[in-house]
C-alpha cells in the first residue's frame, strides 16, 4: 500500500488530521516538498525479515539500496537477487565506513542490535532498527539517548504505527466511541516449533537465534513487542507494574526460551493489559482485544463491535408489563440470569476500514523512514513508541524470569508522555 492509497483509506485530506493520536504521520506532510530528494541506504542483516523490508525499500523511488552486510553468505546472495547492484560486506563496519550511505536498516538477531545501532549512530547514519531494539533495558535507554545526542533519525520496526486499521481505530478509541477502556487482552498463538531449517549443525544458534537465550528473549521480544505498544497506544499511558509467568511446556527440543508466556501489565488506575503467547495451539491466532464499556476492538481482525448489538429491546410499555409480571408472580430464582452462561455474542461487528484488512503498515513504515532520512526530520514520538515497546517486553520477560511483580523502573522512564503535550514537537536533525 502506498501513501496515497493509505491516506485515501483513512478518508483524509492530509495525514495531519490524526496528529493527536498518531503524530508520527506528520512525516508524510513533507512528501511533496522532498519529491526530488533521494537517500542511500544500507541493510545490515538481510535475512528473512530484512528481505521483507527490502521488498518495499527496493520499490521506493526515493531510496537506493547500495549495500548489504551479513555474516551469512546465503542471506547476501538472496538479497542480491532483489538488488543486484548493491555492494556486499561480511563486516558491518565496512558498510558503516561508506560515507555515501545516509542510513542503515538493521534486521539482525536481537542481541546484536545495540552494538550495531550504536556504531551506526556514531558513524553518522540514520537508523531503522527492527524490534525489539535491544537485549536489555539499559541498552535500550542508552540507544535512545544516543539517538537524541546525535540527532539522527531513529525508527523501530513497529509497523502497527502505520497500519491504517490501527490509526483509524485509535482515533475512535481516543474519541471515546468504545467508552472507557478497562482492559486489553493481547495474545499471539501459533502452532509450530518456530524453527528455521539449518544446513549444518554449527549454524543452529546462528539461524535459530530466536530460540536461545544468549541472542533472544523469545516470544516477549519477538512477538509481544508489537502488541504491548498497541496497548499503551490505546490507553494513552504506561503500565506501572508487571507480573508474569512462562515455561517451556511443549517444544522441549533444546530451546532455551519459553514457548508459553503469560503476563499482566497493571496501570496506576487499575486498568489491566494481559499478554499471552502459546506456540502449540493456533486456534485464536493473534489479536489485541481493546475492551471498552461501550464496545470492543479487534484491530488484527480489522473489526469493532458495539455492546448494544442484538435484537432491539422490547418497547418500554412491554418491558414495564413484563417487570410488573415479574413483581406479581416473581421471577424464577433457580434459573435466573445469573445462571445463564455469558457466551460470546454472535455479533458480526463492523470493518474498521469498511472492508477486510489487506496489509499491515510495513510498507508505510519503510516509506516514512525513507522520507524522514530525505528530510532529516524525526517524526514526533516514533522513537519513543519503539523505546517503550521494547522496555515493556523486556520488563515482562524479567518479571517472568524473577517470578515476581516488578514496577516499571523510574530510571528507565524518558521525558515523554504517550498522549500528553510532551514529545509532540518535531525534532530536526542538525
Amino acid at each position: 500500500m502506498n501513501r496515497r492509497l493509505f491516506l485515501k483509506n483513512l478518508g483524509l485530506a492530509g495525514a495531519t488530521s490524526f496528529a493527536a493520536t498518531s503524530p508520527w504521520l506528520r512525516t508524510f506532510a513533507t512528501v511533496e516538498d522532498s519529491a526530488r530528494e533521494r537517500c542511500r541506504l544500507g541493510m545490515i542483516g538481510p535475512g528473512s525479515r530484512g528481505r521483507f523490508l527490502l521488498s518495499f525499500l527496493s520499490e521506493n523511488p526515493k531510496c537506493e539500496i547500495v549495500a548489504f552486510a551479513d555474516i551469512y553468505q546465503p542471506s547476501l546472495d538472496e538479497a542480491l537477487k532483489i538488488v543486484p547492484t548493491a555492494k556486499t560486506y561480511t563486516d558491518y563496519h565496512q558498510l558503516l565506513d561508506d560515507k555515501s550511505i545516509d542510513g542503515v536498516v538493521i534486521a539482525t538477531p536481537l542481541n546484536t542490535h545495540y552494538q550495531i545501532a550504536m556504531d551506526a549512530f556514531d558513524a553518522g547514519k540514520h537508523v531503522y532498527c527492527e524490534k525489539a531494539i535491544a537485549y536489555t533495558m539499559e541498552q535500550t535507554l542508552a540507544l535512545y539517548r544516543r539517538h537524541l545526542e546525535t540527532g539522527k533519525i531513529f525508527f523501530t520496526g513497529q509497523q502497527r504505527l502505520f497500519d491504517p486499521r490501527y490509526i483509524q481505530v485509535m482515533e475512535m478509541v481516543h474519541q471515546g466511541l468504545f467508552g472507557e477502556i478497562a482492559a486489553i487482552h493481547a495474545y499471539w498463538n501459533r502452532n509450530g516449533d518456530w524453527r528455521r531449517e539449518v544446513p549444518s549443525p554449527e549454524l543452529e544458534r546462528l539461524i535459530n537465534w530466536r530460540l536461545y537465550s544468549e541472542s533472544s528473549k523469545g516470544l516477549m521480544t519477538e512477538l509481544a513487542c508489537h502488541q504491548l505498544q498497541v496497548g499503551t497506544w490505546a490507553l494513552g499511558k504506561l503500565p506501572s507494574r508487571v507480573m508474569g509467568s512462562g515455561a517451556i511446556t511443549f517444544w522441549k527440543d533444546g530451546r532455551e526460551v519459553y514457548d508459553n508466556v503469560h503476563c499482566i501489565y497493571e496501570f496506576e488506575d487499575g486498568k489491566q493489559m494481559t499478554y499471552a503467547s502459546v506456540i502449540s495451539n493456533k486456534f485464536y491466532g493473534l489479536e489485541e482485544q481493546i475492551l471498552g464499556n461501550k464496545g470492543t476492538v479487534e484491530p488484527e481482525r480489522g473489526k469493532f463491535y458495539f455492546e448494544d448489538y442484538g435484537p432491539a429491546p422490547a418497547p418500554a410499555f412491554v418491558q414495564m408489563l413484563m417487570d410488573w409480571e415479574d413483581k406479581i408472580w416473581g421471577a424464577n430464582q433457580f434459573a435466573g440470569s445469573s445462571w445463564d452462561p455469558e457466551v460470546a455474542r454472535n455479533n458480526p461487528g463492523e470493518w474498521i476500514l469498511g472492508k477486510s484488512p489487506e496489509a499491515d503498515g510495513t510498507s508505510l513504515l519503510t516509506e516514512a523512514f525513507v522520507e524522514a532520512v530525505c528530510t532529516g526530520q524525526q517524526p514526533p514520538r516514533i522513537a519513543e513508541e519503539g523505546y517503550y515497546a521494547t522496555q515493556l517486553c523486556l520488563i515482562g520477560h524479567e518479571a517472568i524470569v524473577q517470578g515476581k511483580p516488578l514496577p516499571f523502573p523510574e530510571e528507565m522512564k524518558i521525558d515523554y508522555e504517550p498522549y500528553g503535550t510532551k514529545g509532540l514537537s518535531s525534532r530536526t536533525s542538525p
Partner: protein
Amino acid sequence: MPYFYIPTHRIRTESLSLLICFVIAVLLNVYAIVTYDAPFTELWTSILYVLEATFVLYAVWIILRLLAYLFLCLIGRKPKSEHKLPFILHRHERGYRSHHHNRK
C-alpha cells in the same frame, strides 16, 4: 326474537369508560417511556399495545361492575341503573316496555 336496546346514557357512559381506559393506557406508556429511557416515538409505535391495554382495562372494569352487580343481587338490593351491565336488556327499562306495548 331477541331484542337489544342500548339506552343513550349507557352508550355515553361506556364510551366515557373506554376513553378513560385509553387515557390511562397512554399515560402508562408515557410513564414506561420515561422509566425505561425509550424514545418518545414509542407514543405511536406502541399504539397497538396501548389499544390492547385499553380493552384489557375496559374488560377489567366490566368484570368489576359485573361482580358488583352480582353481589348486590345476592344481598337483595336492587342495583341502580348505572350499576347495571351494558348491553343487557332490562324489562323495566322504558324503551323495551314501550316497544312491546306498541306491538300489543
